């Protein structure tokens, strides 16, 4: 049994929130470079160059990449041989969010109730997903999620008879509807299978995958490649103003499902697909 003081979680979460909102990960920077090289529209290229310039300014002057510094989504993979001491784990994560968003000059975008809507003024609470895994480590993944793209995400409860063609249509239809609203070029997370909530969670988790990496399952990898081509053929382009790069990646996760169902979730993310990991 390994003891971990929850203060360590708070401090990690806080510094990760600040870093992830100012410095885009290398995989995403590379994806943006590739997008810039392959974009055929002149206006599209100009916009992609602005996005690259934006990343430099954000990093050098410590101005958040996007003003929507998101609702913090936190994945915690907790080794089953870990014992947390010094307080409540969930409180420690939220204290890290509070500290990071306040000290890092990040925008507070969370309201306390979906209907009453008073801003909590410290961006808490986070949305936390826990899983227990073998070992004595804790892996923290943080993805602040902006709502321009989150609002364009969808869950489809397809029928088994809809098959893979149904899945392809669902993905394309979600991306078409998102259009300029989701700040393309997008990254698209897809969950196929499981239940209503499981597919949505897989779609969210798929966004944390390193851009450029593919699924280990051969047909899923092929589906990712085929759908990226199909999405880019839509012509939505950078900022939705037309062009050949509408998405930089599509990451798909799958899970066993019920004999009667084929759930599909499409979680759309903008070009600022922020994700950061740390292992304690």
């Amino acid at each position: 049994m390994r003891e971990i003081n929850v203060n360590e979680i708070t401090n990690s979460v806080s510094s990760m929130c600040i870093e992830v909102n100012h410095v885009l990960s290398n995989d995403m920077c590379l994806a943006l470079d590739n997008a810039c090289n392959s974009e055929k529209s002149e206006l599209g290229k100009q916009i992609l160059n602005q996005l690259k310039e934006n990343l430099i300014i954000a990093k050098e002057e410590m101005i958040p990449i996007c003003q929507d510094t998101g609702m913090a989504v936190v994945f915690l993979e907790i080794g089953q041989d870990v014992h947390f001491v010094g307080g409540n784990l969930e409180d420690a994560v939220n204290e890290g969010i509070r500290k990071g968003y306040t000290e890092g000059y990040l925008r507070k975008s969370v309201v306390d109730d979906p209907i009453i809507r008073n801003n909590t003024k410290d961006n808490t609470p986070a949305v936390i997903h826990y899983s227990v895994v073998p070992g004595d480590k804790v892996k923290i993944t943080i993805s602040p999620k902006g709502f321009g793209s989150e609002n364009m995400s969808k869950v489809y409860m397809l029928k088994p008879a809809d098959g893979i063609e149904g899945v392809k249509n669902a993905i394309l239809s979600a991306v078409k509807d998102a259009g300029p609203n989701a700040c393309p070029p997008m990254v698209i997370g897809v969950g196929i299978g499981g239940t209503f909530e499981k597919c949505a969670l897989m779609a969210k988790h798929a966004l944390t995958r390193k851009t450029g990496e593919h699924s280990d399952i051969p047909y899923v990898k092929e589906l990712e490649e085929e759908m990226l081509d199909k999405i880019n053929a839509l012509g939505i382009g950078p900022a939705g103003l037309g062009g050949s790069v509408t998405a930089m990646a599509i990451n798909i996760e799958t899970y066993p499902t019920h004999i009667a169902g084929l759930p599909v979730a499409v979680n759309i993310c903008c070009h600022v697909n922020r994700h950061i990991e740390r292992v304690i």
Partner: protein
Amino acid sequence: MTKNINVPMNEKEKEELTAGDYVYLTGTIYTARDAAHKRMQEALEKGEKLPIDIVNQIIYYMGPSPAREGKVIGSAGPTTAGRMDKYTPGLLDMGLGGMIGKGKRTQAVMDAIVKNGSVYFAAVGGAGALLSKSIVKSEVVAYDDLGTEAIRKLEVENFPVIVVADSKGNCLYK
């Protein structure tokens, strides 16, 4: 076509803007997003005056991140305009000059833009750090309690936008 325009604009300048024009704005604009629009609507329903005179002004749909010490503003890119569509035709009928945001609008908004000779610009979404460099002054002028959603008066210099919807009914989004 690339243009440099002072804001607020006159009628002629607005009429000459065409979907696809790349425009650098210099002058005064105001920010308002979801909560400020809701509150303005409630004020109008109660027969009260709006906290700012919107006639001929441009509203930028934006809620910035906090400014660091010595800075004018934090990250300051556009938010999705469509969420304001419920309130927009009414404001355009009252004389609102134009809007800056990103994303699609309803037909009702597009019709109100043509009817009132207005304009809808897009700024590049997710380029908040870059766009903040064109904002030289920022002052909260109403609804301070709304935090990032308060109404701000901004002074901008060469603020880059693209005309998405013009007064002739053209729209750049397909």
